[in-house]
């Protein structure tokens, strides 16, 4: 890239071709640019996408009936026919693990969604309705001082185990954290000039909340929801593992590990395969959460 020199000047006055100090920007696709800017979000999305595919395509991934008993072929080691071996009742561990993906994802996503929506509503009310704030927050403080797994255990112990009840129990234990977060965001927003301006313009409260406050709570809410999703998957597995979660007839990763527990010293593979799947899924969700937090936090965005 050199300027064509004027004819009249002698050669020694002419600047030589400039070295390429600034490398020309290679044109990259949108996807490639996204991956370079947000590697953790991309890695998280890939892992979650993979698990979603496994959950959706479970019947087509060479699985057999995950609940089919076959006492004749109990505790087979992993082989070409039974990729992850068989358990103490002769069930195919591979099929059970693949179908277990569905339970974990359903619980994770359902809890994240329900806790986010309920917590958002409670947080908005606490942040806007002054007289309710003290009452709501004392109740939330009380709920938060019960360790989440114990709270879920106490709730489950009174109901019959089902995926639905597990979702409700974990959701209740996660709501206080969301409500607190949203309340603090709302209280911060209320002091900002644009909200004052909106109030001064005579915006009614419902519109104020929907148009001005709600959009500004979504970024922290999204980050929180991914962390809730990850912790809900772990809590579901823990509840099933100690016998207080999904009913044993449903193949969930926690149940598979609970069944493999008695035999794990001789057959560790029954415990390890669901463990690997669970860890990989939770890792994916956590990576997505970390990436979103960095991407959505304006203070961090300024840093290189």
């Amino acid at each position, binding site marked *: 890239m050199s300027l064509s020199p004027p004819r009249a000047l002698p050669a020694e006055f002419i600047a030589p071709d400039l070295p390429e100090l600034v490398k020309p920007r290679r044109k990259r696709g949108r996807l490639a640019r996204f991956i370079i800017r947000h590697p953790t979000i991309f890695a998280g999305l890939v892992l979650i996408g993979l698990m979603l595919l496994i959950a959706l395509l479970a019947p087509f991934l060479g699985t057999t009936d995950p609940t089919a008993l076959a006492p004749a072929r109990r505790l087979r080691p992993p082989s070409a026919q039974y990729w992850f071996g068989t358990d103490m009742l002769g069930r195919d561990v591979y099929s059970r693990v693949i179908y277990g993906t569905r339970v974990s994802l359903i619980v994770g996503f359902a809890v994240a969604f329900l806790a986010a929506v309920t917590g958002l509503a409670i947080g908005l009310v606490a942040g806007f309705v002054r007289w309710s704030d003290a009452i709501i927050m*004392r*109740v939330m*403080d*009380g*709920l938060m*001082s*019960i*360790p*989440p*797994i*114990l*709270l879920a*255990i*106490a*709730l*489950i*112990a*009174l*109901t*019959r185990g089902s995926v639905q009840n597990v979702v409700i129990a974990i959701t209740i234990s996660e709501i206080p954290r969301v409500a607190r977060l949203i309340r603090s965001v709302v209280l911060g927003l209320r002091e900002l000039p644009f909200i004052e301006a909106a109030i001064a313009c005579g915006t009614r409260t419902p519109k104020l909340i929907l148009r001005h406050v709600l959009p500004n709570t979504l970024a922290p809410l999204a980050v929180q929801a991914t962390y809730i999703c*990850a912790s809900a998957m*772990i*809590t579901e*597995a*823990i509840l099933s*593992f*100690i*016998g*207080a979660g999904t009913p044993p007839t449903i193949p969930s990763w926690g149940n598979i*590990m609970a069944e493999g*527990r008695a035999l*794990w*010293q001789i057959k*560790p593979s029954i*415990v*390890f395969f669901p*463990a690997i799947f*669970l*860890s990989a899924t*939770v*890792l994916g969700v*956590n*990576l997505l959460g*970390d990436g979103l937090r960095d991407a959505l936090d304006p203070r961090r965005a300024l840093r290189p």
Partner: protein
Amino acid sequence: MGTYLLRRVLATIPVMAVVALFVFSLLYIAPGDPAAVIAGDQASPEQIAHIRASLGLDRPFLVRFGDWLWHILHGDLGTSIFTNLPVTHMIAQRIQPTLSLMVFTIALSLIIAIPMGVIAAWQQGKWPDRLIMVFAVLGFSTPVFVIGYVLAFVFALELKLLPVQGFTPIEQGFWPFLRSLILPAFTLGGIYIALIARITRAAMLDVLSQDYIRTARAKGLGQGAVLFVHALKNAAVPIVTVVGLGVALLIGGAVVTESVFAIPGLGRLTVDAILRRDYPVIQGVVLLFSFVYVLVNLAVDLLYTVFDPRIRY
């Protein structure tokens, strides 16, 4: 300070009251007849009636709650439906393993996690930082029992260095006691170490950009003195906060860790109580753990003044 202390202690009373009310009213919120649910599917009508009477379900809610609270304030957590022993007695029998495990885990986690966080902040962006942060993300994502089984598989089954399962009470010697706690403590500590290392790094990064750190370096202090004396002390407030809040993770994790390593503690008591639907025991354990959690965070609040003299009450 005195009045603050009093106010802060009094502020825990409404929190504990909400906890108590919630734990108590669970029996009534649950759909269906709680006595029938607790008795299980094969129970006879007499058994259900017995449970109903022993829980006092035939009396009005508020009377029953007042009665229950009165007993709790006198140190009576009720009687187990299954063993007919007082719940306080059952908890007292099981508390030593759980308490030892939790104290040992907290000590171990602090010794490991705080230097990790400090080194990560010091080496920000370089490979030690990257390595420690990768470890932290993995620690967050690996469920407690997975860490437990991997550690037990490697160190107990393959290398045969440590006992696979069980708990040795301290009365049978300190070394066997400690040996039986090493694997469970690392198992339980995994997520806690990750949490503390992360917050230590973040808090240290904030502090290391301050002017007084430059002053400390300019006057010729060594790297260790700057990092661990000047910076760490000023980064302490967020760290102790997370150490306190993380106790909730430890309590939940203890239930699982005790199952994996067959430790006869409160976690096992809880699991057994769930399987038997022994609701008074579940209520007692939840109340006790919540009380401990509230106390720990009260202590953390009071520690703020030690680390940051600017905070005066």
